[in-house]
């Protein structure tokens, strides 16, 4: 009994800190892989940690026109990613979380983050922030349908809207509903790219202020608040990778709370993260960013794929 308690607590702590600890590494690996594809050496995969440390040690400049929204937004956006990060299956599907792991709770908690991010972008009245916010809202409004429907497809297949339950159930349902799962995954992957500001939606490494979406919204931030914003967007990337890999490819997830299962779960999950980073890096090295007006088409494709996936279930 005692030992179960302890492993339970350890698992929960791991679940809570896993996303913020691993997220910068995930960004670092993607950047490193991209550099390799472009014949560059690239910075160390631990560079994002050093960047965060640097930013946390810096002073901030806040516009005198900024309101409380601008000051609070980084904390809200960051907290949202921590809460969501703890509420999704990462390395174990056996954690029983019935409060915040419902798919609608997840989708709309993330929406709170986006909402405050967009408000903060407009808050200082800078032209670029307004641009970024307007583009972000257009995109997330269009992405929302695809996001919910792809999760819904998985919920319908496994008869539960709890993400842990879905990842557990589909483990048992391997082989069945293959086509639906595949279509839903394709749709979800497009949403991942849109929500995490990657190609072909947004260019995370651009210096062209007129083309930015996510970067434009945080252009006015500096120092500690910028660090939080950067960290939050890294967390978001890992969250989406986790949902994509654990809902659609749920093998290797720890089924019980034994130490060996947990360790295996972490190793498998890390490999999955690596694969997703590789796919994103290949994508960002081989295609050009799409014109802004072509992006809605892509998001609507994601939505349609999921509708077909749902129809195919019955």
């Amino acid at each position, binding site marked *: 009994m005692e030992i179960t308690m302890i492993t339970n607590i350890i698992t929960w702590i791991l679940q809570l800190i896993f996303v913020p600890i691993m997220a910068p590494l995930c960004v670092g690996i993607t950047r490193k892989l*991209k550099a390799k*594809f*472009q*014949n*560059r050496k690239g910075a160390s995969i631990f560079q994002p940690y050093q960047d965060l440390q640097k930013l946390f040690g810096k002073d901030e400049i806040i516009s005198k026109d900024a309101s409380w929204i601008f000051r609070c937004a980084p904390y809200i956006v960051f907290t949202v990613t921590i809460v969501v990060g703890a509420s999704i299956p990462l390395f174990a599907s056996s954690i029983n979380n019935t409060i915040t792991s419902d798919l609608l709770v997840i989708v709309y908690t993330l929406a709170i983050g986006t909402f405050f991010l967009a408000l903060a972008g407009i808050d200082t009245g800078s*032209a*670029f922030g307004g*641009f970024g916010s307007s*583009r972000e809202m257009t995109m997330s409004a269009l992405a929302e349908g695809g996001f919910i429907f792809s999760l819904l497809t998985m919920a319908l297949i496994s008869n539960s809207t709890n993400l842990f339950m879905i990842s557990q159930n589909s483990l048992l349902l391997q082989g069945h509903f293959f086509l639906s799962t595949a279509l839903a995954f394709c749709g979800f992957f497009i949403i991942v790219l849109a929500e995490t500001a990657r*190609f*072909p939606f947004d*260019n995370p490494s*651009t*210096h*062209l*202020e*007129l*083309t930015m979406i996510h970067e434009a919204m945080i*252009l006015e931030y500096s120092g500690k608040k910028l660090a939080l914003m950067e960290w939050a967007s890294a967390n978001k990337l890992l969250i989406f990778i986790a949902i994509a890999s654990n809902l659609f490819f749920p093998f290797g997830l720890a089924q019980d709370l034994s130490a060996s299962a947990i360790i295996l779960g972490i190793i498998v999950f890390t490999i999955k993260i690596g694969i997703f980073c590789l796919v994103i890096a290949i994508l*960002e*090295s*081989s*295609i*050009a*960013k*799409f*014109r*802004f*007006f*072509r992006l809605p088409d892509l998001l609507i494709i994601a939505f349609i794929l999921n509708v077909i996936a749902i129809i195919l279930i019955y």
Partner: protein
Amino acid sequence: MENIQHYLPKNVKVEIINNIALFEVSVSDIKKIAIGLRAKNLQLNLITAADERETKGGFKIWYVFGIPKQNIFIVPFIRLQNTTKFPSLTPTMHSACNFEKKIHTFFGLTPIGHPDLRPIILHENWPANVFPLRKDFDWQAKVKATHESYQFQKVEGEGIYEIPVGPIHAGIIEPGHFRFSVAGEEIILLEAKLGFVHKGSEKLFEILTLSDKLHLSEKISGDSSFSHSLAFCQAVEQLGDVVPPKRALYLRVIYAELERLANHIGDIGAIMIDTGFNFGGSQGARLKEMIMQINERLSRSRFLRHINTIGGVTKDIFVKEVELLSFDLKKIQKDFSEIIAVAENSTSLLNRLKGTGILLPKIAEDYGALGVAAKAVAILNDARVNFPYAAYSELGFNTIETEMDGDVYARFRVRIKEVYASIELIQNALIKLPNGPIYTPINNILFRKNALSVGIVEGWRGQIIYFITTDAMGNISRVAPCDPSFLNWPLVGEVGPSNVVPDFPLINKSFNLSYSGNDL
């Protein structure tokens, strides 16, 4: 010189200086004569003024027209005595617009009938009654800043809003301010305000010694160092009747084409990186670096500086180097064509380039577009062919690479074609490189008195012009450099509208104009 008669008005006294036919016309006639010359398909290359109140009691304004293929310039000029007003050509000849604005700002001469007399280059902080290119303005004088405001054009209506961008940008590029009026993402109006890197170069040209003038010309626009100094040297050589030896002329072609190669390949990569096509971007940067290193190996300067000298060049290319250079270029050509093959197969890249930032041929013509922008709408404008200099005609260079569509893709394609043409030119020049000295030694150069000359060079951006005059003592009294950016900048404003804002950086990159060359 015989076949220029039909370009000249009757009953004028024409003075022939080298390849220039100079004649005075009365202030009231200039409009008619300039429009007549333009109607005969001559290209308006430059309008510039000089303050000769001390020596000849007035201002002089020259109108430089070039006759393509003949390398001859027709230069009517007017004298303004006891007046600061002259008739504006802009209402009938739009390419005169910025030249006249510049004369207005820097000399305080008013073009009567000009539709837009807002200051150019000098900002609202510069007092409106101080004219820096007048001779009585001391180049070291400190001017008290005024705080006027600059009126941008306004668009009004529901949902229209203005975005000010720059002068400081998020990337490390030159400074310039752009004012967008947008409806949602679509650009309705785009106005550029430049002048943030004005360095008083034209005034400096009047002060510096001849060798420093040459160095200054290399700094007018750093990425065109060789072409700018070449244009300056050619103009000075004409004034001093210095003929560079043949080997120097071939070497000048080789260096000039190396400069073009480095910048075109760099731009091709930069256009791709602005669409986010990272493969092409990093490969472009890599090849550009290879050429920069070749430049350094040949001349100890990555930007080919300190090569041109009056009477020739200072850096020779030796036999061993000829082979190495030829080998390197073959390698670069092979890599380059592989990269272009990948780019041309990328649907996502082509989708971004095609149909973006379309320049209409009529607009290009009216604004007097030069270089890549003009060639992308099939305007045959290339000084290497139209006003052959150095060894271009001996090398049989007579094809101007063009495209039809005038979009980003057309400008991208023009650059690609010119890269291949440049490599071929260099290889050709390396084979035919004659033996002999690389410069004509000159001890005490004496210039023609009361003369003028035009140095013209096709830089990688387009045609660069240096207009130089001498006074009665044979000293250089005025140097007017003109980078193609000065004529091409207004095109960017014309091309912007009806595109979406996120495409603007790409459009701007496809022109890749010089701020420094424009602001002087």
